[in-house]
């Protein structure tokens, strides 16, 4: 009843009822701003790499000297197939980012659905789904990925069908990342669902006769969406890293080099030993920057979603 007047800024997170305001809130924090700038930069590169550096160079179309350090006309040097490093790195952005995006979509979709249904339904369904979730959670991501990828690639074959401009071999990686990452999302969303389920507005929905589906869609989902977005940001970063790892151990596709693939090629020709730093530094730097950017955005988002953390007004 009449308790202490906390006199906090009213409304808080509830004011942000749309994606637009969430974005604006993130931009208000310095780390959010930096993160978004970096990500926008890479997103632009990923959407239309040809605009910036022309089509992907191949061994046939390459014109530069072989494995040259940065010189006139090739600011980041060339690789062992005489391709311009800038060209490769920018195209690599598209592969890495698109794979990351698709994998995140799968992960978050599956994770959220399982989390919400499991948390809301409770009982035996919850128990059953959680045992499956735990199974996937416990197996080390990279090990599972290593095992699954060759199996799926055999299933899919190595034809040249493309999905979203990505060859099937890489789609396999997308699926594998999805399979290995959904479980932690599911756990997080389920947790939030469990506490939402007890709130009075869910009771009210029941009293007026709403069924489970309606409640999950109209009451649970809108209140976990912010958490899903925050989680998606982290998942995206993880997806980029997982893809890098898989490509680095040779499960990528040399015809559509991602940053990880470039690192694999660099390793394969012994670039570190040769001192050809321009081969592996650019892709590495990009990976670090992108993951860092996601972390910064994630941190800014976390501040928005957690009103107690907000100190500055």
């Amino acid at each position, binding site marked *: *009843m*009449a*308790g*202490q*007047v*906390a*006199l*906090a*800024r*009213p*409304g808080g997170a509830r004011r942000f009822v749309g994606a637009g305001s969430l974005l604006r809130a993130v931009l208000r924090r310095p780390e959010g701003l930096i993160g978004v700038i970096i990500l926008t930069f890479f997103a632009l590169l990923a959407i239309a790499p040809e605009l910036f550096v022309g089509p992907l160079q191949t061994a046939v179309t390459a014109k530069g000297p072989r494995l040259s350090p940065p010189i006139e006309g090739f600011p980041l040097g060339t690789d062992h197939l005489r391709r311009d490093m800038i060209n490769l790195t920018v195209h690599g952005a598209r592969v890495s980012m698109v794979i990351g995006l698709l994998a995140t979509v799968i992960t978050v979709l599956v994770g959220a659905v399982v989390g919400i249904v499991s948390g809301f339904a409770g009982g035996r369904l919850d128990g059953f789904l959680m045992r499956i979730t735990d199974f996937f959670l416990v197996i080390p991501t990279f090990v599972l990925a290593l095992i699954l990828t060759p199996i799926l690639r055999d299933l899919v074959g190595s034809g040249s069908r493309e999905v979203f401009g990505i060859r099937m071999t890489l789609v396999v990686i997308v699926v594998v990342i999805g399979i290995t990452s959904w479980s932690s999302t599911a756990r997080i969303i389920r947790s939030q669902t469990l506490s939402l389920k007890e709130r009075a507005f869910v009771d009210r929905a029941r009293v007026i006769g709403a069924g489970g589906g309606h409640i999950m869609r109209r009451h649970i989902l809108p209140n976990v969406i912010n958490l899903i977005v925050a989680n998606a940001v982290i998942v995206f970063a993880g997806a980029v890293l997982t893809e890098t790892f898989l490509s680095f151990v040779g499960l990528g596709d040399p015809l559509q080099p991602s940053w990880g693939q470039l690192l694999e090629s660099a390793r394969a020709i012994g670039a570190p030993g040769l001192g050809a730093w321009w081969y592996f530094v650019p892709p590495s730097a990009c990976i670090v920057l992108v993951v860092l950017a996601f972390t910064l955005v994630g941190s800014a988002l976390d501040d928005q979603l957690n009103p107690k953390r907000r100190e500055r*007004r």
Partner: protein
Amino acid sequence: MTVASRRQSLPKLADPSAPLLVVEDLKTHFSLGAETVHAVDGISFTLNHGEALGIAGESGCGKTTTALSLIRLLPSNASIVDGSVRLYGIDLVTKSANALRRYRWREVSIVFQGAMNALNPVHRLRDQIVEPLTERLGMSEKEARKRAGELLELVGIPKKRGGAYPHELSGGMRQRAMIAMALACDPAIVIGDEPTTALDVMIQAQILALLEDLRHKLGLSLILITHDLSVIAETCDRVLIMYAGRVAEEGTVDEVFRRPRHPYTQKLLAAFPNIRADRRTLDVIPGSPPDLRHPPPGCRFAPRCPFAMEVCTEVVPPEVTFGQVRVACHLYPPGSDGVQVTTAPPNAIGATVPLVEPPPAEPPLEVAGG
């Protein structure tokens, strides 16, 4: 310890002839970004030895902020901007945070609403009472445990339950434990901030009877903060009615409750159901308390006051004392006889707010705790 022996442990600077607590023109403001909330805007009152003073008002009136200002347990965006709080004549407002520690808990302690928030869930009851004894009074562990046992018995908790954790106790027991903790250093004043609001009426009766009993046994002085006028009527000697950060009326419980002068007091009293009254009626006060970021000029209650006059919307009413009662209302100007007014004066313009206000332009300030 009796009142007499407490006098031996008065703080060094204490003036034994001064009243126990004198608050003069206290002003506490909160800063919310660019705006300032005038939560407490000029409160004065006196608390005498052995007295129980009730501070009443609805949510947002500033009563809790007043209590927290006395021992400076304010959040970081709040500060006391004016006024004095004199304990035994010593002004606590001028003391540094460090110096204030001497007084907090040893002279003035506080019992909050909802003991679960104040009790540490991972420590046993007994240990939580021992803590202030060893920290503040420098007692040995053995002495402190003995005293903790005594305190528990004093508040009606069997000594052997001292080993329990807070979640193992019922609401009433936890509140008793809070009282035991508050009494640990034998303070002169205990502030109760809605101490019984969340409790069942029977438990409430037990706790209030306990506080009354302790008051007489230990010579304790009590400041009871609550929105529930009925509780104040039952337990307090004097009452201070607050509205929107200011004093509306103050005096002995007998006088204020039987002959309320301020229109807010009259309406508030009439808004409480009375199980012993014949007529089953309840009064309505239209509108809601003002936004303390932009308080209205003049009397802050004027927009909702059925007896409001033109002057009320322009001039802040002065506080005038008539015998046992102090009122801040233009119906009782200085020099008038102070007789209770219960009908609208001929030049009244009445309340100007509608019964259901349109949705506000700015969101209302949120009150934590419901």
